[in-house]
């Protein structure tokens, strides 16, 4: 994505890898033109009887017995270090106002969340989901990384480890995909960006796309059109039953399916509700993939420009604009999905929060703990989870940062356990033993 990475200038650490976003898809629905590998194989297994039963029989055998098969994780990474204290605001804590005499947001300007916390007013578009208890906040959440380097902190979180620099295990989502590999699909994993984000590093089933319309046959001029080539190649990939032939067959079917989608007509929730931003365009593409039932499993997106060292503003300005983009984009996405939003978990995280005290330039410097958000029909939403370490001088870390009370992997592991495919959490998060921490409802 070409978000302005203002924060790339603020830290001397090298090794910046272009940020990217990776949504994944997994196909499982059938249409006349689209049939998944699993269905294909299952059908072969059923023999002629399966074929003669026609589409309804296919639909039946296609039902995935594992409970989370239809679920999509939409992971949004706020790059640059989003200020958790001005996002989920400790409105009853006088220390907050003492530390932030200019940047502190008055209680009367916040949206009521709990006895202790109020939300930044830019979260208003998401208040319906707060009230429906589908949006949960985890405060004082972060990683063991204490370098306060964007790059080390991001890599640590995206690798799902204690220390991203020591790690050679690739991304946590890549490990999850490898561990749950049950069917190979052409769009199991897609990153909206120019390269895969570190969370998907090491997954050969992940694909980076700038936008969904890039998932196409690139037919050079003079070579005819895409439809002809899809037909031509389909003649080569119709018969054989080996893995690559099936994959080619599925890829071509997916291309056919996507060709039938008119993005303008395919926004039942109203295209006009999506703000004009990169995050928003990415989410709109994710909604299209979910509706097309191509088997999306994980979608990763980025939103940059959170490194508010200077003039971050309070209820207007830089930080407010960022938060507005997130909340309006996510709200438009959920409205667009309508009933299908129950199949989605939206996970929003950032590499670290910011210093508890404001700086002399009316901004905030790199801190430790921040906020994570989980939006899901089954989460215990409408409240703030996690212990609150406090903002008194002796409660902050020596540098003056909110301490990490909840490890970021606690939240990731909860989401995986409650909503994604059964997996070995030890393989996904190798140096971590999740604490008992229930952000999901017991009935899950």
């Amino acid at each position, binding site marked *: 994505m070409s978000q302005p990475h203002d924060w790339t200038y603020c830290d001397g650490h090298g090794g910046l890898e272009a940020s990217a976003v990776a949504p994944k898809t997994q196909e499982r629905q059938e249409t006349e033109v689209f049939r998944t590998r699993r269905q294909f194989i299952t059908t072969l297994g059923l023999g002629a009887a399966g074929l003669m039963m026609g589409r309804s029989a296919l639909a039946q055998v296609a039902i995935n017995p594992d409970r989370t098969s239809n679920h999509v994780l939409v992971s949004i990474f706020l790059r640059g270090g989003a200020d958790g204290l001005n996002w989920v605001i400790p409105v009853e804590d006088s220390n907050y106002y003492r530390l932030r005499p200019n940047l502190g947001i008055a209680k009367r300007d916040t949206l009521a969340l709990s006895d202790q916390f109020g939300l930044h007013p830019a979260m208003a578009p998401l208040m319906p989901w707060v009230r429906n208890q589908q949006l949960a906040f985890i405060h004082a959440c972060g990683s063991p990384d204490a370098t306060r380097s964007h790059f080390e902190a991001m890599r640590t979180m995206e690798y799902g480890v204690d220390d991203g620099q*020591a790690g050679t295990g690739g991304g946590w989502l890549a490990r999850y995909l490898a561990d749950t590999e049950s069917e*190979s699909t052409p769009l199991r994993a897609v990153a909206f960006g120019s390269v895969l984000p570190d969370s998907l590093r*090491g997954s050969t*089933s992940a694909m980076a796309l700038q936008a969904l319309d890039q998932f196409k046959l690139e037919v*050079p001029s*003079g070579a005819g059109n895409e439809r002809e080539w899809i037909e031509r190649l389909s003649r*080569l990939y119709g018969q*054989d039953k080996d893995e690559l*032939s099936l994959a*080619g067959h599925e890829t071509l079917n997916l291309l056919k399916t996507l060709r039938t989608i008119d993005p303008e007509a395919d926004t039942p929730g109203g295209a006009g509700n999506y703000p004009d931003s990169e995050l928003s365009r990415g989410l709109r593409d994710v909604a299209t993939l979910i509706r097309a039932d191509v088997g999306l499993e994980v979608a990763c997106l980025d939103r940059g420009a959170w490194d508010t060292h200077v003039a971050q503003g309070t209820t207007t300005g830089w930080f407010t604009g960022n938060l507005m983009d997130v909340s309006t984009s996510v709200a438009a996405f959920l409205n667009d999905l309508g009933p299908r939003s129950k199949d989605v978990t939206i996970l929003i995280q950032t590499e670290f929060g910011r210093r508890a005290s404001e700086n002399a330039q009316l901004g905030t410097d790199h801190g430790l703990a921040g906020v994570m958000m989980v939006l899901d029909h089954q989460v215990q939403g409408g409240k703030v989870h996690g212990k609150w370490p406090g903002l008194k001088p002796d409660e902050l870390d020596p540098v003056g940062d909110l301490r990490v009370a909840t490890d970021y992997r606690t939240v990731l592991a909860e989401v995986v356990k409650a909503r994604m495919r059964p997996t070995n959490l030890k393989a996904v998060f190798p140096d971590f033993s999740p604490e008992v921490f229930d952000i999901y409802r017991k009935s899950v």
Partner: protein
Amino acid sequence: MLTRRDLLAALGGAAALAGCTPSMREARNLTASGPVKRASANATPLIRKLNRLGFGATPDLLARVETMGWDAYVDEQLAANQPDPAELNFLISRLDIEHFSAPDLRNVPDHHVQAQLRQAKLLRAIYSPNQLRERMVEFWTDHFNIDAKKSYASYALADDQRGVVRPHALGSFPAMLTASAHSPAMLAYLDNKVNHAGVVNENYGREILELHTLGVHGGYTQKDVLEVSRCFTGWTVEERFMGGMSLREMRPPNKMGAFLFREDLHMKGARTVLGKKIPDGGKEQGDLVIAMLAEHSSTANTLATKLCRYFLGNLAEPFIAPTAKRYLDSKGDIKAMIEPILRSEEFGQDAELPKRPFDFIVSSLRALDATTTGRGSVQPALERLGHASFNWAMPDGYPTKTSAWTASMLARFNWALALAYGPLEDVEISPERLGERLSLSPEDAVAYCVLGPGRELPTPAKSAREAVALAIASPEFQWR
């Protein structure tokens, strides 16, 4: 403190390093232009063998191998002493990575170094006549995987390729293992350079056991991992500009970035590894571990299994035990292990071996006698296919199983179309010229070169360009 980098920059060193890069004009000299003798229809099975031994047939190679016979070709490839074309050497000699040691390369942007590493590897795979050697370089680069993006490992990777993988690719495995343990790129990648007494880092100790030698079920314990790691404490990299010395006694500059054993960081005491005693000592403790692992029967099994599967896919099983025995009998001679595999009947049989994207791209360029500098559009295509060289984060190397590569099909189709119709930056093909050289129509020449003598396209093509796209995108061309 003045660093070497500052000094060089001040002296204008950075500008001097900008270097030149190979151009298409030079690359064009790499492809032949005279008439090609056609192989007979019986030679088609050779295409599969050439896909496995190396990176596929070229228009000239097919008839040459048919004439000389497979066994003679295997002899030639095992000897690996065919002179590389002067033009290939020239193209590669223009790269900075060929001329600068790791610390000096650090004045070149990281991504340029990575691009050059990838370019050199690709050019050799396409144009070197020593195809088996390049095939084994591919194999060992995965076996001793190093992620260029970790800890600036890219700067030391050129030395790793030059000093570890390439010289031993068809030589002695114990020698390669020893070189790898001393390689600054590996020391950085698997954190052994920060493995010190008091702060033991187990990363290298674990992977040398699990991935490089014994295998995960090779009979070691967690205690062995710790003890091996302790033996390797103090094996690190010289990172001080003057080696910690005064100006007068300064080390030669090339010492910087080189392997360094530091007694002061080495953990004292005797160790027990795999039930054997390793006496108290210095660097020789690590050397003893390497020797012990190199002669272990589990290492023989690990390497035999991996090599047999790499060359024989699902036909590997009966070959594994004899190959392991040959490893032990020959004290780790790689040629001794693979020679019977290359000469076996099974080597030419269907074994469900997929072309990984690197194979797919290289074999497409070889089949069509393409001209390329190895830059331009080729590297982005490999990235889209998920197989850019030196870019695998995990120490296990790029996967070999077919299911790992099923997401690459769209990118394969797009490569086939782009290669056929162009224009592609830094890549040129000419079906018309192929036709002239083979005395065939351009369409038939494409079918001959890509699919084999006497073979037809999977579906009729209206033009030579369409023939290229269909042949390269065909299911058949996706297999090794």
